[in-house]
């Protein structure tokens, strides 16, 4: 495995020669990532599969709401050359659709289904991917999107316990803790110019 760095180089050459790579990162001697155009993903993955990266290790997405994009990640692995390759691409967040890679990696079936469930990305070409897998009777936006707040959801649906034991001892005086908290809140406002 001493030539693992040259494996990374080899992969880079394979991909960079034929496709436009938006961003390349060599993460470690066993891992390299490429950010590519959405349209190239399928042919890159096909190319990689024919070059020995036959195992789809992981498929998922990242939500970047500020850029209004989803980032799809495909991670493939070659057991003989020992390099994990991340292929990443960006999708529009408004209408996220990505053709399924089912014909290339049949193992993606459930990954894509889960990604649809948690991010709402559609994968045409993967039959039944729109069915729920992990969640049951989900009634909110896909939970791994950044704008979903699990705490608010939890507060709404599951009641927190209110203990009746009281350990507070004010000794007949006015609470200092509350005063401190109030002061803290005010000063945090000041920082953002909130008083103006």
């Amino acid at each position, binding site marked *: 495995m001493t030539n693992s760095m040259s494996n990374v180089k080899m992969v880079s050459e394979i991909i960079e020669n034929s496709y436009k790579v938006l961003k390349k990162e060599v993460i470690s001697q066993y891992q390299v990532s490429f950010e590519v155009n959405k349209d190239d993903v399928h042919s890159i993955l096909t190319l990689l599969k024919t070059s020995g990266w036959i195992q789809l290790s992981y498929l998922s997405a990242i939500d970047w709401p500020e850029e209004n994009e989803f980032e799809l990640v495909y991670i493939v692995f070659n057991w003989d050359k020992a390099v994990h390759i991340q292929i990443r691409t960006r999708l529009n967040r408004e209408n996220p659709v990505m053709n399924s890679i089912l014909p290339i990696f049949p193992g993606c079936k459930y990954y894509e289904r889960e990604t649809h469930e948690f991010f709402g990305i559609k994968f045409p070409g993967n039959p039944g991917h729109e069915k729920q897998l992990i969640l049951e009777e989900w009634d909110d936006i896909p*939970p791994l999107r950044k704008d979903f707040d699990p705490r608010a959801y*939890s507060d709404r649906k*599951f009641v927190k316990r209110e203990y009746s034991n009281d350990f507070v001892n004010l000794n007949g005086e006015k609470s200092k803790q509350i005063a401190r908290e109030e002061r803290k809140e005010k000063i945090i406002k000041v920082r953002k110019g909130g008083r103006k």
Partner: protein
Amino acid sequence: MLSTKFTKLSKEEVDRKWWEIGDFFRRNSLWMLMYCTGCCAIELPPAMTSAYDMERLGMGPMATPRQADVLLVTGYLSLKTLRRLIYTYEQMSEPKYVVGIGSCTINGGIYHDSHAVINQLNRYVPVDVYVAGCMPNTEAVMNGFVDLMGLIKTKKANGWKDYHARNEWYMANQKAALGEVKVHDEFHE
């Protein structure tokens, strides 16, 4: 005179006696349901097998809810499990007891702000004993079992009666969390 007094009291008194006898046998031969609802279940195999050997307490695992006495809720309950747990609980024959193991059953534990995990178990099914810990060691679980036996003896393990008495409250809570308690799991195939 004596006999009339005896017959006069008999209805409740005899009932009570029978329950006491029943409780004696029940608490010395508790069958726990093998349902690993959460991660604390991993401390049950040592309790069941040679290391801690809970058969010394007269306890043993039971495969079907209809013959089991004790339902162990081992840790967190996701909504999906809660649906099935309620099914299971309602299938169990009475009297039935619930032991809540781990922090999660008390106040949500580490998953208190998760979108998928309930916080307080006793809003959905009545719980008789809680065991603290995340996860509790096997010893703590065993002690919890003996606590339960003690509670049965002192007639404090009345969760199942409470489930009847306040059934509507429990139902309402279940509904609030789950929407619908009925399991439809064909959806995913």
